[in-house]
Every structure is written in structure tokens, then in C-alpha cells.
């Protein structure tokens, strides 16, 4: 979780202006009306209906800032998020075939930007053999044992989605990649190569307040690593090995690629005239373990973040190397009540070099940066009503991020969610403290089909 500003970049393509409203409006309306019809009436008519599956949802999702202190560049006042979205998922896995495919794509209208966008979220081909599997295309990965805390999960995340109350699945961004699964009794493996770098989506200009060490230099070039098809050295590699030993589930991980939040280059960090941003190189090595213990489930994870472009820790524009630790425990109580707690910390290496080179305008990070999290979940009314609370608290930065949420299944297909993202903190330049004016209330209504 970085406090450095980032400007929106993404792989979504946008429909040209001429299509705004009018024609595309009606198209979207048409698609929304037609999808359930196709699903309920046309699909069962085909003989391969069992092998072809077509599902999705229509969703409306709004988030409003709880106060009127809007950030500079806010386009729609308090509205942080306002969208109508259609998602379509199609999969085709023929019987007795070793090949299958899956596609998931969203089409939505964004009231903040007032535009229509396609978001190709996932799409891949599967080749399945007895001892291995190959998956090629855009896919989502979730590794590690943390709950909303990620160490060896080095894949891109959309933090803005989490902070503005989108459903959890939008925290993860699909990666264009090739994955090889190897299954064996000794150890199983997932090996991933990713040619196209994808950064995290951080809270963006106009939607969120955030700390910027150089507010007077708004124009910054952002240099994204070229695709590995152009520069082979930019290929990202990720490996996960896993097996069970007795009651333990072990994982070992390695990654070589880039930080997903930008670092900074400046002609002079103390009084810069030009600033540019780029993604420094990173390698990560880690381990995880999990088992039943103490009447619940105990998890532990470790990762060494090797900051390849700043191993001596002297460059203030690049994160130093770190060791990251996580210990978690979850326990279920009678009547559908579950409690999860986690302790997480980042130990910065070469800390004295960091201190010596830290520009005065930067927020100073503690040598040991720590979080405690608490998750409470209660299900009621035959699990149709869910009350949940997730809390981040940083011991050293003294800031909070609290997510209370109520969700209710009106029917199997109709879900309503209301919740808050509460940011609080002593300072304006800490991970969550910088967003403390962005506490928001969000609503989601989803019709699945």
C-alpha cells in the first residue's frame, strides 16, 4: 500500500464520443433486456446446453462521499461511484474434451465520467491433461493465506474498487498470462508468465483525496514497462509450489517483475522541477502455512521483497527491500458467527539509508509498519441476511479503514448490499489517513441470471 500518487491507467477501451447516449444507450438497454431471455428460453433449446454455460448479472452500484469536502477535480460532487453494469460469463467445456474456454466481460455506464466502457475481465483457453494443465489468456490469480492482506499475491489489485464499495471480485484485476499447472504427489506447482505489465488501480484524481508530496508539480510522465513482446526482459514470472504435509498446507512462492505501485524520479528530490513516475523492478520470495489449531484455522505467511533497483536503500523514489509477515486466526462460533483476526507487518531493510535520504516533503514510514485486522461475520434468516465488519488498524500510522456492511438476498437472484468505507487517521499522509475525507456510503443491487 503506497502513498504515492498515480494517474489512471488501464487496459479498458472506451467507446468514442459519437456513441455517447443515443444509440449505445439503447444498445445497452437492449442487451439488458435480452440476456435473461437468451438464458431462459434460447439456451436450453441447444443440445450442448449442458456443456455451454451462459450466466451473468445486471448491477447498479453507487457510492457517495459522506461529507461535502470534495477533492480537486471532482466531476460529480459527492458521487465517488455511480454505475449500471451488465456482466456476461460464458464457458464451454465439452464432455470428454481436453480443451475448454471461459470468457467474462462487463459493459457499464459510469456516471462520474459519463461514459460507457467495456471491461474485458477474464478470457482464457484451458488445456487439461492428467498431470498438468495449461491456461492461456486473461485470468485472475489469488495467492497466499491473508484476508485482504497480500504478501505473495503479487498480482494487480484495484484498491479504488475496494475503497469505493464495489463488490469484492473487483479488487482483483485479470492478467494476460500463461499458466502451467503441474500436479504431483510430491509437490504441485503453478508457474505463470505475464508479458503485459498491469499496475494496481489506486484511488484516482477527482474521486479521492490523497497525499501528494509535490502538489505543485501536477504534470508527470508515467512510464509503464513495455510489453515483453517488445522487450523480452520485461516478462514477469510467478511460481507457487504447494503441498500438504500432515495437517499442514504449505506454499512456497517466487516472483520476478515490478512493483505495482509507481516509484518516482526527480531531478532533485528536495526541490524538484520535473518529476516522472515509473515501476521499479521487484523480486519476491515467500512461504505460507495453514492448519486447524486452537479450535479454528491458523495461518502464517512470509515474503521477502527484494527491491532490485534500490538494494542499497538510498533512492527515496523507490521502496526499500522489506520483509513482510502475517499471522492470522479465524474461528467459527455457533449460529453462523465467525471471527477472524490478523497481524501483519512490513519490516523495512536499509532503514538508516532510507532515513538519511528521505526528502522533507515525504511521509515517513516506520521501520516496522504494522496492521491489525478484525473481521466479524454474522449470518441470519437462513443465511439470507449477512452482517459483516472488516477493520484495518495501523499501530504505527494510527489510521483506520473500517467496512461495515449489510447484505440481503431478497431472492436467489436478487441481492442488495449497503455499507460504508470509513477512513480515519491522526495524519493526512498515512495509508488510510490520506483518505479520511473520503468516508463513503455505498449501495449495490445485483440481479443474477
Amino acid at each position: 500500500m503506497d502513498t504515492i500518487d498515480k494517474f489512471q491507467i488501464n487496459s479498458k477501451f472506451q467507446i468514442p464520443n459519437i456513441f455517447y447516449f443515443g444509440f449505445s444507450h439503447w444498445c445497452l438497454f437492449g442487451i439488458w433486456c435480452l440476456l435473461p431471455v437468451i438464458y431462459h428460453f434460447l439456451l436450453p433449446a441447444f443440445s450442448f446446453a449442458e456443456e455451454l454455460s451462459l450466466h451473468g448479472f445486471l448491477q447498479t452500484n453507487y457510492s457517495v462521499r459522506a461529507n461535502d469536502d470534495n477533492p480537486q477535480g471532482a466531476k460529480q460532487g459527492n458521487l465517488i461511484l455511480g454505475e449500471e453494469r451488465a456482466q456476461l460469463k460464458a464457458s464451454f467445456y465439452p464432455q470428454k474434451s481436453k480443451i475448454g474456454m471461459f470468457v467474462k466481460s462487463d459493459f457499464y455506464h459510469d456516471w462520474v465520467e459519463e461514459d460507457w466502457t467495456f471491461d474485458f475481465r477474464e478470457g482464457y483457453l484451458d488445456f487439461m491433461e492428467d498431470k498438468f494443465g495449461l491456461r492461456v489468456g486473461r485470468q485472475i490469480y489469488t495467492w497466499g493465506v491473508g484476508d485482504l492482506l497480500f504478501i505473495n499475491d503479487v498480482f494487480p489489485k484495484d484498491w479504488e474498487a475496494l475503497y469505493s464499495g464495489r463488490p469484492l471480485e473487483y479488487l482483483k484485476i485479470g492478467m494476460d498470462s500463461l499458466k502451467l499447472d503441474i500436479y504431483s504427489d510430491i509437490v504441485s506447482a503453478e508457474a505463470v508468465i505475464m508479458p503485459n505489465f498491469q499496475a494496481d488501480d489506486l484511488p484516482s484524481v477527482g474521486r479521492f483525496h490523497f497525499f501528494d508530496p509535490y502538489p505543485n508539480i501536477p504534470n508527470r510522465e508515467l512510464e509503464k514497462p513495455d510489453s515483453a513482446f517488445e522487450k523480452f526482459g520485461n516478462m514477469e514470472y510467478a511460481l507457487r509450489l504447494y503441498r500438504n504435509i500432515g495437517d499442514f498446507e504449505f506454499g512456497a512462492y517466487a516472483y520476478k517483475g515490478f512493483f505495482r505501485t509507481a516509484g518516482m524520479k526527480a531531478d532533485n528530490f528536495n526541490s524538484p522541477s520535473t518529476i516522472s513516475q515509473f515501476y521499479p523492478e521487484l523480486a519476491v520470495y515467500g512461504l505460507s502455512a495453514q492448519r486447524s489449531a486452537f479450535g479454528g484455522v491458523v495461518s502464517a505467511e512470509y515474503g521477502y521483497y527484494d527491491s532490485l533497483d534500490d538494494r542499497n536503500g538510498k533512492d527515496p523514489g523507490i521502496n526499500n527491500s522489506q520483509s513482510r509477515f502475517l499471522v492470522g486466526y479465524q474461528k467459527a462460533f455457533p449460529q453462523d458467527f465467525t471471527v477472524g483476526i490478523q497481524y501483519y507487518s512490513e519490516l523495512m531493510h536499509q532503514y538508516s539509508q532510507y532515513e538519511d535520504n528521505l526528502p522533507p516533503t515525504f511521509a515517513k514510514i516506520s521501520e516496522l509498519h504494522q496492521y491489525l485486522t478484525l473481521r466479524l461475520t454474522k449470518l441470519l434468516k437462513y443465511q439470507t441476511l449477512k452482517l459483516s465488519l472488516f477493520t484495518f488498524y495501523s499501530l504505527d500510522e494510527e489510521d483506520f479503514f473500517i467496512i461495515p456492511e449489510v447484505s440481503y438476498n431478497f431472492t436467489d437472484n436478487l441481492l442488495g448490499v449497503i455499507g460504508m468505507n470509513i477512513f480515519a487517521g491522526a495524519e493526512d499522509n498515512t495509508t488510510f489517513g490520506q483518505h479520511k475525507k473520503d468516508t463513503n456510503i455505498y449501495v449495490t443491487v445485483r440481479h443474477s441470471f
Partner: protein
Amino acid sequence: MRTIKMLFVLSLLIFASFAGKVSFAKGELSADDIIAKSRFVFYYAGDDMKAKVLMELINKDGQKRIRELTMLRKNLGEGGNQKYFMYFHKPSDVKDTTFMVYKYPDRDDDRWLFIPSINLVKRIAANDKYSSFVGSDFTYEDVSGRKPDEDKHTLLRKETLNGKNCFVIESMPIGASEYTKRISWIDETNFLPLKEEFYDKQNELYRQFEAQEIKDINGILTATKRVMKNIKTGHRTEATFQEVEYNLGIGDDVFSERYLRRPPLEWIR
């Protein structure tokens, strides 16, 4: 495998005969024997089992919700350990979700849930055996069974239920339990539980189980329609077991992270 299973049954029976407090004339089964046998035929039939289960969750106003899943079960020999794998077909918002349970009679289960939208295998804390299974009236314990020695069993009487001769057995929990008393009607000929009543602290009936349809599947009698009704809320769950098959030789490797992430198509369709 079959030998191990037989040994397991035998050990249960031996255990039951020592623990039995109620014994009838020579040659008659004790209450503990009956419960042990009943548990075996209901939860351990075959070496493995596959079934497509349609659960209809119906509230007192008649509003219906649906859970459709394919369930795979494999017995693991001595000790009564079992592995379960479940793949959800419906409703659409949980389609492709998979759920895996390693069941140990002597300690808490291990449970894993796969959430396809974020490609996440999540380990679930599992000491809540009285929690509702997927929002139905069945608890986890109803789905996978309860150890006979967790209750003290008494044979109350024999009577006919829907024309079938039944043992009527009262089971009083020894430790903490969701219920304070359970009365079971167990078919004298095949030991299947045909009806169960669960009583709460006020000694009032609050849940009632009925096996409404029994089918012979390759020589194994199976309750293919199971209804659990909550008397106090009026809510009920009707579980229909379709396409039941036994002794398919389901491999141990199916019950693994690999197949949680990529459901085994040859078994789940």
C-alpha cells in the same frame, strides 16, 4: 477397502455392545447397536457415492429458494473418516463454487471453499457443526452425521410408522449439543432413519426430519427424499437425491485443491 469397512462396522458394533445400557433378551439389538447401524447405513453406504442434490428451501409463506449441487463422498476406512466434494450448479450467483470437507468423527472438520470470481481457495473455520448447511434447515451435522457415543441412547418402544416396523430410540446428548433430546424412528429391517424429532431446552419439538422416499440403488437402500422442517419458524428444506450412484471408484485425488479450482467434469455433470 471393503474389509476395512467391515472392520469399522464391526468395531462400532463391538463398541456399541460394551457401551450399551439398554439390553433386551438375548439376540436382540441394544439401542446403541441400532444407532450405530443406522448411522452406518445412512452416512457410510458404499465405498463412495455420487448424487445430484436438489435442495428446496421453503419459508412459511411458500417462497422457495434453490440449491442444486453435485455431491461426491468417499469413505476412508478405519475411524470413519470421510471426504466430501460439492459442486454448486444453482443458484446462478454461486454457480461453479466448490466446497470440500474432510470429515473426522473425533475432531473438527477441515473445510475449503473455492470462490471462482476471484479464483480463491479459502480455508474455512469449522467448529460450527450446528450451523446451517448452505442456508437450509439441515445442519452440517445432519449432512455428515454424528458419532453415536455423543448421546446416551434408550430404546423406548417399537411401533409402526407408515406401515413400517420401527425402533423408537431416545438419544440424550452427553456433552453440549444443539438439541436436548432426539427421538428417532429407525426401520427394523434396514436401519434407515425414517423420522427424527429434535427437542429444545424447553423440551419443545423444534425440528423434524423425515425420509419421505427410499429407493434401492444397486442393492443399497437410499433415502432419496429428505425433509427437515423447523416447527417453530415454519421453514422447511426438501432435499431430493437424484442420479445416486455408489462404488464408482472415485479417486482420492478428486478431493484436492486441484479439483476445487477445476471441478472434475466427469463426476459433476
